[in-house]
């Protein structure tokens, strides 16, 4: 399920969240996390179809959940979680 070595994401392929560039936006597609981690981060707002943008790359990284109308929050995410979140990059 996880794309192999996607270091140069284009706008249509699904990539790992940690493969985005800083400032790049994406839509969450799916995750390959265990049930407990998946439930937690979904409850924090990182659910399928949520619009996100990467604020800081690294371990941990910072991702902003962008709600409509300026709503949203920032979440510090450990690298293992960011590696298992698949996103579709947006322009």
């Amino acid at each position, binding site marked *: 399920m996880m794309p192999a070595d996607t270091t140069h994401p284009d706008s249509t392929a699904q990539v790992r969240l940690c493969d985005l560039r800083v400032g790049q936006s994406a839509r969450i597609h799916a995750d390959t996390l265990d049930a407990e981690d998946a439930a937690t981060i979904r409850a924090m707002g990182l659910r399928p179809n949520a619009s996100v943008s990467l604020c800081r790359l690294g*371990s941990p990284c910072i991702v902003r959940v962008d709600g409509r109308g300026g709503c949203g*929050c920032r*979440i510090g995410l450990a690298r293992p979680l960011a590696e298992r979140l698949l996103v579709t990059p947006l322009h």
Partner: protein
Amino acid sequence: MTATVAPTDDASPPEAGVLRVALLGNPNTGKTTLFNRLCGLRHKTSNFPGTTQESRVGFTCIGSRDVEVIDLPGVYSLELDQSESSVCRGVLAGQTAPKGEAAQPPDAVCIVVDASNLARNLAIVGEALRRRLATVVVINMQDIAARRGLRIDVERLSEALGCEVVASQARSGEGIAAIREALTRARIPTDTPPGDEDGLVAWVDRVYEKAIAPASMDVARASFTDRLDRAFTHPIIGLVLFAAVMTGLFWVLFRLATVPMDLIDGVFGSIAAGIESVLPPGFLADMLANGVVAGVGATVIFLPQIVLLFLLISLLEDTGYLARAAFVMDRALRPFGLAGHSFVPLLSSHACALPGIMSARMIPDRRQRLATILVAPFMTCSARLPVYALLVTVLFPGRPGMQALAFTGSYALGVVVALLSALLARRTILRGEGRPMALELPAYRLPSLKSALLTTWDRSLVFLRKAGTVILAISVVLWWLGSYPIVDPPEDVASMRAQASALVATSPEDAAALVAEADAAEASHAVRASFMGRIGRTVQPVFEPLGYDWQLSIGVMASFAAREVFVSTMAVVVSGQDDAEDEGVLTALRTAQRSDGTPIFTTATAWSLLVYYVLAMQCLPTLAVTAREAGGWKWAGLQLGWMTGVAYVLAMVVTQTLRLLGVS
């Protein structure tokens, strides 16, 4: 995900009697600020039975009606398989209640929502509405939403949810009166959101669409947060800023706490003196003055530092910085099997391990939480400071620079051994991959002093209750062991007193000096002959490899339950006085000799004692809290055995190495 509780009947809350309201919401929504606004100091703190989740129950009056408010733990979802969510589910279903309360569903639920993050917060609103309880939704933190250009149509939101919605800014008090009124007329919502996850997501989208007025994000604000985050979460700059913030925090802590600590010391000294002057000499006066008052004073004296630490941590937390500090520290702590969440408990333990261990509840991963609890007491707490102060004075008399260096080294030793111990625990008894960190970084904002003061008041009371009672009991036992059996004074004391009587007329100053010398010799003899003295002599062979004689062994044994007792015990054993603040007593301690003329505190024993006191577990209240928070006395036993074992071995290594090098 767990199953949803079946809807109950649609009865509205009773119109009379105490109105029981549960406060529910995501973390960082200002729920506790609202609780403080509603109840102020009228609340009690305990635990939900069978859990380590703290429960706060507050009381207020709305009109003529008594209202009880239960502050539930902040949760992202009611359906998570986590302790906090389980407690919330239990309270809403009437199956769980704070200690001492009857388990019954609340009459109303007040759901606190962050206006700047409405979409995510609506999910928990939906989950709560499914419970079919009378509900009021509070849209809080309007200031942050307004700064971002967000506009929420409260009326349309109320329509969409089918319950009353109140806009507020709990921090400034805006909207509190409206919330109080709304609570008394809370009704079962007319809408019931779908029970499945996809259905709930679609429901949230629909409600959000209705309630939010389209607006563009405040780009300037976002870039301001970005800029701050770029600095505070940077791998290097973030660490430098973190070091600067922590240095400032501890500077303020030690600088400002000195005055009230001296004041408390003086007040308790006066109370003890007052008791001794009012009551006739004997068991009662001695026990009250030297057991009860000294014991309470020994605990209360650390309160200023603890209050200040809580206040500063609360303020830092309120600004949004503490989450960034945990984020930065995650990188540093992860190699040792801990997570960023462990940072606040370890930081708090620098004032006192009790609140530090209690705050480990916020660590979601069980193994990381247990590892943090086990190693938190390695952090240098306030109780170690008098011992450090004595030993660095012994090691570097008149050299404040070197004393400061030794002090700093002691702090560092505690941190290093704690991290290595955590690593060992995570590789052995707590083996397994830790849950990776997912941590919300709340918006930066100016802190609320009132809210911080109320939180500080609450936590300080918990500390006083927990530490004061146990330490008081220990102090009385220690006093008894150190005071009994009562023995006759030695012969030379009697002759000194006789000489003093003869000198009173001709040389009153010499007579007074002789009396003081006789008093000191008598007190010293009494301690040596006491049960504690006998225990010291019995256990001395155990401490022989560390270079401690029987007198130091008494000091170490007496401080088994509370380490700060070491200084006053040594002062009594060596000089017959217990005022360790007295420069004369400190000099007496530094230069004290054994009966063969060799010094009690050699360089080797002082270094060894310093290492021992940095690392040893000598605090009964901490063990009690560890047992409760970790879920059993075996963890407290492990903590005691490991810390004391490491302290013993390293102190022995220090003594033997220094002896080999010819330092004594």
